[in-house]
């Protein structure tokens, strides 16, 4: 599992979203409240640049919210800029079809002040 140093941790503050090129692939590195995640920058829907999309929360509405709209998972959802498919950054799974439409996630570690992505 090759490990790639992508930069000093100071360049990836909480809430940040950065694209890095690791060899032949592009990866989005996300800092969600101090926890790092990395996803391929390719949407499984039609191959759009998923990690260039906006990072937000997501609407929810269920018996648990009294069937009122709620806003949840702030900072944990990236929306593909091509067709609007939402993905949970922390799992790589889409919100619409978590088991069918998903991307892999790469492990990220912080060592010696450096952010490292393992492919």
């Amino acid at each position: 599992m090759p490990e790639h140093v992508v930069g000093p941790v100071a360049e990836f503050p909480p809430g940040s979203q950065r694209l890095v090129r690791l060899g032949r692939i592009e990866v989005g590195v996300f800092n969600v409240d101090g926890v790092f995640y990395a996803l391929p920058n390719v949407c499984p829907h039609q191959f759009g640049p998923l990690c260039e999309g906006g990072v937000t929360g997501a609407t929810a509405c269920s018996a648990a919210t009294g069937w009122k709209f709620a806003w949840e998972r702030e900072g944990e959802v990236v929306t593909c800029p091509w067709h609007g498919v939402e993905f949970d950054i922390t799992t790589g799974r889409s919100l619409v079809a978590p088991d069918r439409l998903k991307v892999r996630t790469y492990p990220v570690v912080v060592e010696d002040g450096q952010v490292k992505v393992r492919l």
Partner: protein
Amino acid sequence: MQATVERTDRATISDIIVVDADIHINDTPAALAPYCEEPWRKSLEILAETPSRYLDIPGFSPTLKLDPPIPGGHANRSVHTPAEMRAELTAIGVDIGVLFPDNLLLFAPLPNIEYAVALSHAYNRWLTAEWLDEEGLYGALLACPQDPVDSAREIERYAANDKVVAVYLPTAGVNPLWGHRTYDPIFAAAEAADLPVLLHSVTLVSPAFPCQLDQFENHFGRQMLSHSFAMMANLTSLIHTGVPARFPKLRVGFTEAGIAWVPYMMWRMDKYYQEYRRMIPFLEKRPSEYMKERMWFATQPIEEPDDPKDLVRMIDMIGADRVLFASDWPHHDFDHPRALLKLPMPIETKRKIMGENALELFGIPKPVGKIAGVA
């Protein structure tokens, strides 16, 4: 090969139980008047004096007939008594049928709310008092979109009647469409009574959906779209306000629009669910998954592609467990059971579509043998 198919048909039609999800009884003003509350009984008595016209009675079945008469064509039919219905169903090999109205297919556009409520009560009284003692005849209660709270009480009133097996949602010209939250009491009552709701449309010219059918020069054009567009619009309406999520046991049936539109809507709604999930977060799964779980689709008017295998493939896409035979007897475009029985499908699939699916959906006990005898 041909001989094999024919032998299969003969072997199956004699022992396949045929349940028909959509047949029609002639609900004239004169028939309903004795069952109607005053002062609206007087309205029906006045209407009963006017010469009857087929699905075209002002103040009762309001439509807008725009076409000039052209000689030729085939006659309209209607069924007036349970014995007549039993005999005619037997003649086409149908064992069990779920009754819908004729004229009150055009119920939804009636604007007078008190009158509509009285009419719905009268129809339901007439249906349960006069039609359901006949063997094999089951009823769908008329829901009243004009007063959903009253309609919910009506469903509770008849919930214990074993021969009431569904709630009919008048779909032609309904405004707003059936997904609107104003109808929640009807869905809650149907769910609590464990009665499926069945959407049924009819061809009409109306300012409500499917609107602008007046743009077509003749009935052919209007007939093409009135049923199927009404089903597509109301299915979309139900999904886009989360009815299947908010009523997790509610079962929904769609009648008289054929079935070929169903895979199209499954795929189209799934595609746009991907894009617009944030607007409809009450959905916990893709629209097609709700459709495959708790929605049923009646076959009539069954599509007739040159290659019948195309239709079989279409049924597979929907799921053979979710397809219900319907004849629409006695209407002008009825389907004979043989239209489905002749399809190149395994006998097990035919049994499901022709009857088993409907018996399960409607909670009708399986008859020990053919009520209709051998067709």
